[in-house]
């Protein structure tokens, strides 16, 4: 047991080193970062954070990202739950093909697809809206949600469904009251992954927005200026991009950790 914990702690420390370095950089001025190596910043400053919170072109990036990521996560989960149930429980015409086709939508290299995407969304007049980015991100998040949820649902014995139907549950009531609590862990993981992949995606989000719905990842490219990168400011913005996702995983952690107890029906 001791050895197991030692390995885990060692891994987590290695994992945190680049993030610590980002934190370290975010507390220093650009000139200070470029001048010398300092394990602990000797002259700490919060200027980088103050600049982000006082400049609306910076903090509106966070708000925009949060809006479309939330819309996307909700759409992904609501549409994927019934679909994943269908794939895990039923056989129907084209089931295997549709299931695999869904995932193929994640497999295309984005570079050349950006132009047709822009044309498609401008035809519908959706450019520079949050819903456009949320919908576009469904392309890779909905298949992922279906696949992850299907895996968890297949782990639930089908006798549970049969027993519930014999007991007189209607399908919607069975699904909401019995089945969803059983796969809480799966829903938690799925919600986190949808949030995460939508949050860090840059190319589509940047292509489909100009000003009103501009995401934070695109705002960050502004730190590149004639005088080079403003590393401190970029690091501070990077630290702040971690915060919302860390909150999300904090809220789903119990669903992740508890697993599920069988025989609740």
């Amino acid at each position, binding site marked *: 047991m001791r050895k197991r914990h030692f390995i885990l702690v060692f891994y987590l420390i290695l994992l945190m080193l680049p993030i610590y370095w980002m934190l370290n950089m975010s507390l220093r001025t650009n000139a200070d970062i470029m001048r010398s190596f300092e394990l602990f910043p000797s002259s700490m400053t919060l200027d980088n954070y103050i600049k982000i919170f006082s400049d609306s072109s910076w903090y509106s990036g966070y708000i925009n990202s949060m809006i479309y990521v939330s819309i996307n996560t909700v759409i992904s989960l*609501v549409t994927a739950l019934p679909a994943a149930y269908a794939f895990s429980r039923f056989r*129907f015409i084209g089931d295997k093909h549709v299931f695999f086709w869904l995932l193929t939508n994640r497999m295309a290299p984005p570079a050349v697809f950006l*132009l047709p995407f822009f044309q498609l969304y401008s035809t519908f007049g959706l450019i520079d809206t949050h819903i456009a980015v949320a919908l576009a991100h469904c392309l890779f998040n909905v298949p992922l949600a279906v696949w992850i949820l299907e895996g968890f649902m297949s782990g639930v014995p089908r006798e549970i469904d049969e027993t519930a139907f014999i007991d007189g549950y209607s399908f919607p009531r069975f699904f909401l009251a019995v089945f969803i609590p059983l796969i809480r862990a799966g829903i938690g*993981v799925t919600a986190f992954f949808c949030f995460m992949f939508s949050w860090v995606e840059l190319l589509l989000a940047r292509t489909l927005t100009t000003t009103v719905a501009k995401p934070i990842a695109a705002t960050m490219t502004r730190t590149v200026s004639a005088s080079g990168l403003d590393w401190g400011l970029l690091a501070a913005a990077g630290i702040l991009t971690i915060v919302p996702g860390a909150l999300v*995983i904090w809220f789903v952690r119990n669903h992740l950790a508890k697993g599920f107890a069988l025989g609740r029906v």
Partner: protein
Amino acid sequence: MEKWENNRAWFLILPVFVIVAFSAIIPLMTVVNYSVQDILGPGQRIFVGTEWFREMLTNSRLHDALIKQLIFSGLVLLIEIPLGIAIALTMPHKGWTASVCLVLLALPLLIPWNVIGTIWIIFTRPDIGLFGATINTLGLAFDHTANPLHAWITVLLMEVWHWTPLVVLLAYAGLRSIPDAYYQAAKIDGASRWAVFRYIQLPKMRGVLTIAVLLRFMDSFLIYAEPFVLTGGGPGNATTFLSIYLVKLSTAMDLGPAAAFSIIYFLIVLLFCWIFYQALQAVGTGDKS
């Protein structure tokens, strides 16, 4: 366990089908359209058939990038999947320590990809970065901007750092959904730790591991922002992976060849994912019987 046969299940997947098809079909058709045309300007297009495909298939730099990409993705899978499972097995099952582990694991995944590359530029700098300075203090000359091998190690290290937590989270959630009764039965039978892992934990993780392998394969095969920002594809062409080459091509030439390249690229990813998927499905059914 035979699945119930019922074609009305299509109604359950209809919302997903509509929402994905909306963004998927028209852009794909447009790119296919580009790939068989020579686009000279607005309204000036010549149908060229399979010319771009033939040109791309005989392009030696593409072959070069493809081989590098295959080695890279292979290494990524070989390192991240076993490491991810191992870490998930060491994680505590409950309590505040489990919560802290989960939050810490998620942090690298939440940083936008272009920022990861930028942070690693400084992190690996021998004069002002933690990683670079540490390696240099150990007396090893390390420079990822000049030495191709070092550039590879750096990009691979960044990739493993960034994405292993994804495998850990998936494997951990899979482990947590194994009912305690299975472990109790194994205890009564006097099963060894290895037997518990091999015959209970691993088969029960098949679903999440399939997703982990497929996701890690396709995302590492399509990797762009992180190595592009960190090394710019260099030194020389040492870390010019497929997508970096594709972007170079699409900015240097017109859309036709780049679109043909995209289609070929897409089909390669599709082929490999199909093989992995089939193989993992077969392994799973073998365990059950």
